């Protein structure tokens, strides 16, 4: 094994990382300055720019094969703060940029400022929080300092909570409050762990921590607290109680953002912590515990999804279930002397699951929003005939469902296939069994939506408000991406290998 690599030096394209964070945040500031109906226009202007930055970051990584690093104020850690994009960060940045842009286009009809008014509360809040979430996610994906990550995590929470209660109904306010209390529990624990890390090692920089940390009681307590806090924020079973009411009660575009992107932020930090700051943690039995919680999430979330009478709660419980798969990364990537190919397969499986679930869930929530608006309700028992009235939307929801079930050739299939292969390679067959069981259960709850939607209505449907074709196309595009991730590899493995901590000591850069 090689000696630990020195922390990365700043790279030429490092300013792109600053842009990735500053563009959305500058947008939010402008929105507050100009106010009113300008908010939507600014958000729509930031989208292509942010997308271009995400593409540039990804391209820079693919071309150089090295992570992008930027030192704020030209001060290297431990004195200064670093921003760093490895392959996983770049992939998540791309995903965020694409989904935020798609949902932004989708939401124009829901959150247009009415003509004749200067400023309406819900649209203004939505468009500012859309960009705020984007900026916060960029901080989470690029931050390299535990305290920077804490601030990013808090920004993410403050952006996400008000989105839940945009309509101001009592039950969404309750859902938002419960979400906030869970999130505060999580942030306090994360901060407490951060203090312990600083007290023990004198730095919060992840690259430096990776070279300094050693398994002792203090580190174990710190990691346990931070992980518990992050699990509360990402809603992993048994901390999932807040998620279904919050995600099901929010307006459709907000649900899509919350379920596809916001819950991935804390998950990403668990990965950073376990693989980045404390390498070697995954060899411990604690990794099996994370996997077991993931298994609980898959089974519990899927069974509850099967019992829901309404469409949006069903999709929300499906998020609880799908998040569980992400945590199979930890037990599978552990083990001393595991070949690099297996580690890479686990890493790719987890990343593809995060990304394909993000696209599939954005499509499903947006599609459910269109169905709800067309029918005036979202009861599953009343979905008969929707397939004829809204063929494009139904097709998109079915396609997204394909990815959630993990049927080939979708992105979900590729993710679950990689995880199953790794569980066989590491002789942990029980995780493979879990993936199969979860796939069957997902098939069950997707069937509950698709079967009535495709059947003929008992009586002609009442007058349906047909959604704009533009919105249906956005939903379809999101669903297609989640499926195509399995067909077109998009150079994902190459990208994910860049700066990858699990193989860093095997492939020296």
């Amino acid at each position: 094994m090689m000696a630990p690599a020195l922390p990365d030096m700043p790279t030429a394209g490092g300013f792109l990382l600053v842009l990735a964070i500053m563009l959305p945040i500058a947008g939010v500031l402008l929105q507050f300055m100009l106010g009113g109906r300008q908010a939507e226009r600014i958000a729509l202007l930031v989208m292509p720019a942010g997308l271009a930055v995400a593409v540039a970051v990804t391209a820079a990584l693919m071309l150089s094969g090295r992570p992008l690093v930027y030192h704020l104020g030209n001060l290297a850690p431990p004195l200064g703060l670093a921003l760093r994009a490895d392959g996983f960060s770049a992939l998540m940045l791309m995903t965020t940029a694409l989904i935020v842009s798609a949902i932004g286009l989708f939401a124009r009809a829901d959150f247009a400022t009415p003509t004749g008014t200067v400023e309406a509360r819900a649209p203004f809040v939505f468009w500012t929080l859309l960009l705020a979430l984007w900026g916060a996610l960029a901080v989470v994906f690029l931050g390299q300092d535990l305290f920077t990550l804490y601030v990013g995590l808090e920004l993410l929470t403050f952006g996400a909570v008000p989105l839940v209660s945009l309509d101001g109904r009592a039950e969404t306010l309750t859902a938002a409050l419960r979400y906030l209390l869970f999130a505060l529990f999580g942030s306090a624990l994360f901060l407490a762990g951060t203090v312990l890390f600083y007290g023990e090692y004198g730095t919060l920089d992840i690259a430096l921590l990776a070279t300094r940390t050693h398994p002792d009681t203090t580190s174990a307590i710190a990691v346990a607290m931070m992980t518990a806090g992050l699990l509360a924020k990402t809603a992993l079973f048994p901390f999932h109680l807040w998620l279904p009411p919050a995600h099901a009660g929010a307006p459709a575009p907000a649900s899509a953002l919350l379920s596809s992107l916001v819950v991935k932020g804390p998950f990403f930090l668990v990965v950073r912590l376990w693989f980045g700051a404390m390498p070697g943690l995954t060899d411990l039995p604690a990794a099996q515990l994370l996997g077991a919680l993931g298994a609980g999430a898959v089974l519990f979330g899927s069974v509850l999804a099967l019992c829901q009478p309404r469409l949006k709660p069903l999709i929300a419980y499906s998020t609880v279930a799908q998040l569980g798969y992400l945590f199979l990364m930890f037990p599978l990537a552990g083990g001393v002397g595991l070949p690099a190919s297996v580690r890479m397969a686990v890493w790719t499986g987890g990343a593809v699951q995060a990304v394909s679930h993000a696209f599939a869930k954005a499509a499903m929530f947006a599609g459910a929003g269109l169905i709800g608006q067309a029918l005036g309700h979202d009861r599953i028992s009343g979905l008969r005939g929707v397939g004829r009235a809204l063929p494009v939307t139904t097709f998109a929801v079915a396609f997204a469902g394909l990815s959630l079930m993990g049927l080939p050739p979708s992105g979900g299939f590729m993710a679950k296939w990689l995880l199953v292969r790794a569980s066989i390679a590491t002789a942990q067959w029980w995780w493979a069994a879990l993936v199969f069981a979860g796939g069957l259960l997902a098939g069950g709850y997707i069937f509950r939506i698709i079967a009535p939607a495709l059947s003929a209505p008992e009586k002609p449907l009442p007058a349906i408000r047909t959604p704009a074709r533009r919105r249906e196309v956005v939903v379809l595009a999101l669903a297609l991406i989640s499926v195509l991730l399995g067909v077109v590899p998009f150079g994902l493995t190459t990208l994910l290998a860049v700066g990858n901590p699990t193989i860093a000591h095997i492939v020296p850069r």
Partner: protein
Amino acid sequence: MNAEVLFGLAGAVLAGLGLYGLVADPAPLRKLLAFNLLGGGVFLVFGVVARRGAAAGLGGDPVPQALVITGLVVAFAATALAVALLRLLFERTGQTLLDTAAQERTSPDQADG
């Protein structure tokens, strides 16, 4: 027992009390107060870490102090957001409990969009 140990233990006790309240108390307002207690405990531990890291003639390591200030701002903003939500909830329903079962009985099945 020197001052650092004493303050560290006090911080740990505060954090423990706050954590217990946050998990066990059913009322959101009291949960929020418990969160602030927990935060206070964590900030106190930050202070101890700063004191223990004192070097180069300084009374304490300045980095944790800078972090505490940011942490205070974040905790303040979080508290303000929670209080605003609670007030709005009280205006709408006349109560501030998180009993969803009672609310689901009163609100009819409706589409969200």
